């Protein structure tokens, strides 16, 4: 399992955190890889801070403990930076991807992060402009694909399309794809 990647997602209930985690899982399966996508369950209500986890590997994953040292942390809601230690356990060479209007250096200062690599994208703004609602998971997936190079943009876009067909109207699917691509373009990252 030397290519095991562990991802932790932070968001609030109702923001599509679990969907984002599942979507990545489906993409991994599309390429014949193995994955685990599981949430952290506590009191569940809209707006409560929630965490979800994804493991990805080209080999079967038998580990069933929680993710303690993620390679990537994705924060879908910027307000969580103030209340949740989102960077806990982040590996030294790990990536922290945050939905925020702030630049990476600012985020690093704000949370006092040493190590890792910070990437930011204003997914909320993109979502509102392209989709008309502040559901940030699709743009965040675009930023994710671009920042981590774990998946091809087109690979994830195709998976998004499959995921949404039949569930939402075609023009809304296209809006989501637009938001996805735009975030991939606009994501900023610190140089390694």
């Amino acid at each position: 399992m030397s290519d095991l990647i562990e991802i932790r997602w932070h968001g609030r209930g109702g923001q599509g955190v679990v969907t984002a985690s599942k979507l990545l899982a489906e993409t991994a399966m599309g390429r014949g890889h193995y994955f685990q996508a599981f949430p952290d369950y506590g009191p569940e209500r809209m707006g409560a801070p929630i965490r979800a986890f994804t493991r990805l590997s080209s080999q079967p994953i038998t580990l069933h403990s929680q993710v303690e040292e993620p390679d990537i942390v994705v924060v879908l809601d910027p307000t969580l930076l103030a209340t949740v230690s989102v960077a806990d356990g982040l590996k030294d060479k790990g990536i922290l991807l945050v939905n925020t209007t702030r630049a990476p250096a600012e985020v690093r200062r704000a949370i006092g992060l040493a190590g890792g690599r910070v990437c930011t994208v204003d997914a909320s703004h993109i979502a509102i402009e392209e989709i008309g609602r502040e559901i940030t998971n699709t743009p965040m997936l675009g930023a994710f694909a671009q920042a981590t190079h774990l998946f091809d943009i087109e690979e994830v876009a195709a998976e998004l399309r499959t995921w949404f067909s039949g569930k939402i109207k075609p023009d809304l699917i296209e809006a989501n794809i637009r938001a996805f691509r735009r975030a991939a373009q606009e994501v900023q990252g610190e140089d390694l």
Partner: protein
Amino acid sequence: MSTFEALSGNEAVATAMRQINPDVMAAYPITPQTSTIQRFADFCADGLVDTEYVTVESEHSAMSACVGASAAGSRVMTATSANGLALMWEVLYIAASNRCPIVMSLVNRALSGPINIHCDHADVMGMRDSGWIILMSENGQEAYDNLIQAVRIAEHPDVLLPVAVCQDGFITSHSIERIEIYDDAQVKAFVGTYQPRWPLLDLDAPKTHGAVGFSDYYYEHKRQQVEAIAQAPRVILEVAEEFQSFGRDYGLFESYRLEDATVAVVVANSTAGTARVVVDRLREEGRKAGLLKLRVFRPFPARELADALGHLEAVAVMDRSVSIGAMQNAGPLFLELVAALTLHGVRLPMVDYVFGLGGRDIVPREIEGVYRELFQMAETGQVRQAVSYLGVRE
């Protein structure tokens, strides 16, 4: 042709249920099994199964309805967890003693109190004397495979006992993983049609189920149950052999890197997967660690376990429940394994690690600690402490 799908453990079990298409499902929701019966309800609503879905008002009613439907001559399924299982406790014994081949998905969760929805084995351990066959599953794939095999095991004329298929609450029930779903027709052919032996609905041969049996007959009925479950290991292995046609191998337990090991951990369900990672890591360091993952808890494969473990220099059992007030306040797996090994003349240093109660996470680092202790025990022959509580805050 199989397909690969991204499914949670619960969804995988629901899929198996769809493919089996039981006559009756009587169930009541409880976290963390709810998504199983919810998904199955979708299948019913979408006309993908012919199942009569009885939405009962409690788990006690669920199992009661299952017993009635089974006695009538139906193939019956249900699902529950923890306090839901506890609520149907009296009917579990009735299901087994009335020889109803009911198949139940049991998603393991802690028994209250305090109120806890997370993974723990207290629920299944509480039914260990009920007469049910109990299968444990490491992940969603195993839960799916076990559920399919459970139907054949339960309905075998030499057995005719209900079967509980366990998997860890949240850890595998809610973890979406890559699951191989077999062809519908292949699964259907494997489970076949239920041939009830003495159905109540056979009006040409009226009969009585669930009669009274006073002190002049009760004992003989229990002896019959014992005989039936004694046939189960043979039947379980026969069904597993047939199941190889799906490309998977099952036994009474799985021995992982055990044959040439000097020490081993014995554990059930998802923690076996995490332990597997630790074993591989230790093997890379040249340490001869092994793992025994228990699949069949009831009937307890005592002799086979003694044979598999007899060559080791030290063994640790990991128990995700505790039998409060038992000897040394140990866990039930440990208590049974000690008895099994002793009975078969196997004497070796053995310890118990109770862990993960109420969903407390267990990480590779902690399991590595267990192995390091085992290597010490193997070297010195000394046991520091028979029963320890791993991961509790002192």
